[in-house]
């Protein structure tokens, strides 16, 4: 039977299936549940406690809503980017299957993005837990009736694609580097944490460094997420006061397209280099 050329949908769908199987591979589902709840809450709690120590637990402050929502939705940034790039390391170094994936008629970029979807799903669970924690325990002033759901869904969709493409760029780098550098997704996510106004307004950053944040789509993505939930509070901060929601969406779209093109082309080039150097079935641990 003649095998058809690469089927994009099957590459993507099967990769999602595999990614979920790997992510949910816990011998103890209870432990998985604890992990899914404890990890995001304790991670976010560091910032909450820092805030609490300085402001004597003034959680009604607009600054708290700003920090908490940014910190919560930042989970997606790390999860999607590392999910996509980590698949290279996992398949090549751990499961030793990358060469078979490459030999098969798989659309590799879509396969990698599909592997990232599982991380997106686990991040969604973490985000939900945190938002429930924030709204009901810490009393962040979010009213469901005032949430701009349309803006939120559009922003999430654009963000998922944008972060996937950045993840693809990182996957290309991972393909050409050591196993020990599996932190590459975390490094970039960490940079965005600093530069994109996740837990503090961009104005805190020194001039020069602040400008970098304006070029990164994550900055606008986080801002739009905040506006979806606490529009008036978000707009009170000076950084983007002069921009309307629509303007921010368009800026997000523009920057996302640029990063998307860079991400995809970079991956193709890195991929080619990996084949020239014989890195596809490389094993590098020490």
């Amino acid at each position: 039977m003649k095998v058809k050329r690469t089927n994009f949908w099957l590459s993507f769908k099967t990769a999602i299936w595999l990614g979920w199987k790997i992510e949910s591979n816990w011998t103890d589902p209870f432990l998985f549940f604890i992990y899914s709840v404890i990890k995001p809450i304790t991670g976010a709690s560091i910032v909450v406690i820092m805030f609490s120590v300085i402001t004597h637990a003034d959680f009604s402050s607009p600054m708290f809503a700003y920090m908490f929502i940014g910190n919560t939705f930042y989970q997606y940034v790390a999860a999607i980017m590392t999910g996509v790039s980590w698949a290279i390391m996992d398949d090549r170094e751990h499961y030793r299957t990358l060469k078979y994936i490459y030999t098969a008629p798989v659309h590799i970029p879509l396969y990698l993005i599909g592997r990232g979807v599982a991380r997106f799903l686990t991040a969604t669970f973490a985000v939900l837990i945190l938002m429930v924690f924030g709204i009901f325990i810490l009393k962040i002033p979010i009213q469901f009736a005032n949430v701009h759901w349309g803006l939120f869904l559009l922003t999430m969709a654009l963000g998922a694609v944008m972060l996937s493409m950045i993840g693809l760029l990182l996957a290309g780098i991972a393909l050409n580097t050591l196993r020990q550098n599996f932190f590459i997704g975390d490094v970039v996510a960490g940079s965005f944490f600093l530069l994109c106004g996740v837990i503090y307004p961009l104005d805190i950053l020194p001039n020069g460094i602040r400008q970098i944040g304006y070029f990164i789509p994550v900055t606008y993505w986080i801002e739009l997420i905040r506006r979806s939930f606490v529009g008036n509070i978000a707009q009170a901060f000076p950084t983007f006061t002069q921009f309307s929601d629509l303007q921010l969406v368009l800026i997000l779209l523009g920057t996302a397209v640029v990063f998307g093109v860079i991400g995809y082309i970079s991956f193709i080039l890195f991929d080619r280099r990996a084949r020239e150097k014989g890195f596809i079935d490389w094993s590098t641990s020490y």
Partner: protein
Amino acid sequence: MLDQFSIQTEKLGRVYKLRGAKKGEARSLVALKDIDLTVHRGELFGLLGPNGAGKTTLIKILTTLLSPTSGRAMVAGVDVERYPDKVRPLINMVSGGESSGYGLLTVRDNLWMFSQFYVIPSKEANARIKKLLDIVGLKDKTNIRSSDLSTGLRQKMNIVRGFMTDPDVLFMDEPSLGLDVEASRDVRHFIREWVNQDQRRTLMLTTHYMVEADELCDRVAIINHGQVLACDKPATLKRQLQEHAIFEIEIQENPNLDIAGFKSIRGVNSVTRQEVDSKVSLEFVLKEEAVLADVIGKLTQMQLRIQNLRKREPTLEDVFVRLVGRRMEEEEKNAESSAN
């Protein structure tokens, strides 16, 4: 109309740059040099050579995992370097001696997943998986996690993965590695049948087991140090040696034994020594049978008592020795010590 050739290489070369080479050390490694090969459709083709000969490098290039540094390679009529996406639906690959696979998935899940990458409908895929698992003796392990399988069984699972997609060209890199004797025999039998069933199918396998290549392959290429030394049917290659006479003489280990002394006898093409228990087996490739008398005379001179003498038909090992001057194990040892 189908292409006559499944695999074609033209002056194919691959050079690796060596990182961290110190002054005086080589900075590059020539893994393949000017490889010209053609494999016909429907052929079971063997690549035979010692470890480090370049067999795996060649397979990697042909399966689009590695770019050549010179020349070109075509698989199923498609340039592997320029159009890898067109090649991949037509090929598959199995590597021996490793336990790749997703341990957390069952045998069936692992195989099904790869079938999806080859766009095989689930129903068809499951039917093929079931049939092939039965053939390789893994039927009762279908729903077992692959991490619970032994290395040999995992290798069988990978073999099924290779055949399951029914490729036009299948590459098998040391497929018997990791398998026991019986399993190796079963796999060889299956490989032969698979190729015979459909003239569209071509299989290229690499091995350093002479017997495997001799038994299975329609044609064999002997490769060493990145170059093809000979390429023909096993019978034809061996027949080239049949003009010579090959004798095996067993003697007791003795300090008087001097191999160089035999090589000086006119008509002795080569003599190699093997040790089995406390006995020494000397293999003589003679220009003609009459030279045997001189050899026996020499043995008597050295006061070596013959315990066993027999005439042997030439094997691919003999062909290799003729081409390289050493047995394959010796060549591998030599390559290792050069590397160190």
